[in-house]
């Protein structure tokens, strides 16, 4: 595989990870850039699990940057507009209203997730890392990964219940999984 091929394969996942962790498009873009520079400076072809390795570098750099900035995730108006444009092009008006409400709600919910939970969530759902790989990346036990993942889902569910969101209907509100 060439460097360009590697870049094309993982650039979106790395960017999304950076974006969801940093909540800032510019920072995400710069850090995504840095992740690949870092990767290419190393002997990347000898790495067995490239995907997990790259996601791990991305996550470490995100966490470092977050720590440095002591950043609480800031609301990015620009991103919301982009979301509106993206949905407007394919949905009917009625759907747009409903979808938009849900999107904004999700945006808000994701923003409220603490960094620790967000790290597990992005590695799991964007990076598609196994629980063991997440544990290795974050240097925490697998049990902690599981509990953080569960906590993240539970937190989001709780928030949705508070907001009495429409689309929660149909799911057993008091059930546990």
């Amino acid at each position, binding site marked *: 595989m060439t460097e*360009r091929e590697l*870049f*094309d394969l993982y*650039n*979106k996942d790395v*960017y*999304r990870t950076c*974006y*969801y962790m940093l909540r800032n*498009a510019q*920072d*995400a*873009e*710069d*850090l*995504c*850039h*840095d992740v*690949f*520079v*870092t990767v*290419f*400076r*190393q*002997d990347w072809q000898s790495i067995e699990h490239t995907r997990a390795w790259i996601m791990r570098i991305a996550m*470490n*750099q995100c966490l*470092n*940057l977050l*720590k*440095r900035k*002591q950043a609480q995730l800031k609301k990015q108006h620009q*991103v919301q507009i*982009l*979301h509106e444009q*993206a*949905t407007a092009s394919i949905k009917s008006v009625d759907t747009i209203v409903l979808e938009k409400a849900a*999107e904004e709600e*999700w945006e808000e919910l*994701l923003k409220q997730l603490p960094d620790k939970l967000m790290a597990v*969530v*992005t590695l799991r*759902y*964007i990076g598609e890392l196994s629980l063991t790989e997440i544990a290795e990346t*974050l*240097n*925490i036990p697998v049990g902690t990964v599981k509990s953080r993942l569960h906590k993240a*889902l*539970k937190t*989001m*569910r709780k928030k*949705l219940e508070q907001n009495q969101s429409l689309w929660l209907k*149909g*799911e057993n509100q008091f*059930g*546990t*999984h």
Partner: protein
Amino acid sequence: MERIEKKLKNELKNADKMAYPDFDKMWSSIQQDELKITETERLVLPPPRKRKKYALVAGLAIALMATPVYAALNYDWSDILSYREGIQTALEQGLGQKIEQSITKQDITLTVHTAFIDDNRTILLYTLKPSASWKGDHIGFDRIGLKDEDGNFIEGDYVHQWNKELGVFQGYFETSWVAQEKVADTQLTIENIYFIGDGKQSIDYDPTNNETQVFPIHKDGIDHVTLQAFEQGEGRVVLQSAVTFSDADTKNKWVRIIAMDPMNKPIQEAESPVFGTPEDTGAYINQQVFTADSIRAKDASFELSYMHNLGVIKDTWRIDMKLSKKQLKNSSSRDVLNIPLENVPGGTKVREMRVTPTQIRLLLTSEEKYTHIPYTKYQLAIGEKLLDGGRWEVENNPYQTELRFEVAGLSMDTLASEPITLIAKRRVDVVDGDDQPIHLTNISAKPQSKTSTIGGYPITWTYYTKNNNLYVESSSPDAEFGGVTQTYYLHQKKRNYGTPLIISLLGDDNNMQIDEYENFKDKELDIYIWKYTTNDPNAEQHVPLTIGK
């Protein structure tokens, strides 16, 4: 819950909704091989071959752990090693060189149990068992240290405490000396053991009187004690005691004032006390801050508490040992970093990092002597783990400072693979004063006040005479202002400095200072600020040291 998970997955993974940057442009930029964010933070990437070295190191560390030494585990060292967690961790892992050698002289048995020797330091765990009939509360030595093969005496620090159950003093001796060879013939030497008891003497101190009060003691090597109180604002009183000794041996025996409430219980100080600052005259100064209400309560009483020698056994206890670096040396690494510290004066940089299984030391070098490194709290972030560290002066080298971090709960494997970041917190800057005089007028026993500003900080000055001395107090309502370190006046172009009476610690929340000018008779005086400090308790600087594997 599945539905939420599905929705979340979709939300995060759905490419349609995400506004991606121009990846082609990013690709061209990546080709430049320059970091955007991390470069400015001076990220250091270890070259690939370093990883191989680390891999080898990790293998050795595991092999060493597989052959544990259990001898020292008969004793519980965790209490005494609470500030040496790295040693405690190594001990738990069975690392360390088993010594188990004893010497008994005059009914006192000294035993060296375990030695830890790596590229940073040498630590010996010892016990001292006095005869069953010993009396006292503590023991001390005239001298403790190591002798190397050439007979050179190597000094170090020791800490020990009484273990009531076992009837021994348990302690450790620590020195930065490290044997040059793999195996070194060494001797631990202890000269003259003192038995020390706690002594008390009540004093008739009047806390409502701020005049200097002198109390003759003439007992246990203490001649007299002088007490002086200063109002500190916020209802606090600084109680300063100067202890004068008649017997030099009694020095450093922790003489302090204990204030007691009407129930005869000790009154807790409102701030951390400072004990034993030596004065030119040979006296020894303590500074304790109390709330005025507590020590001025009716029936509050005061006593002098101190340690004094009950007896001495003059002899030398020696134990010969062959100290071996083998165990810990193999898993140590030393990296030259040369990472400049931003916004730190004196061209200061992190020159090198020395990692051993028990401790990480960062050597900071500055281009100027005695550079003030403006942080008071240091941590190392290793992956998710934070290690607390402390700043140490490097002996005989004013251009260097060391930051030491005890390694606890981290394997060499983790140390090698995780990114390591230095975090410096709570900034305190020392700033030069200016040439603007503060004009003191109508100087008399009656306190006068005036205000001035420096560097944008307001300062309130209060001055008065007492016992023929002039006292100049300075303080600021701005918490960012750390305090005037010292004032001076000019006499025929020569600076005459006041004597600061308050012992202030960098970064403490007290910016009041009092300078004393002895035998002052004039009515007016122009004083100048020599230096002042500023505090930024929320400042935090992150310096990535290694990026990890």
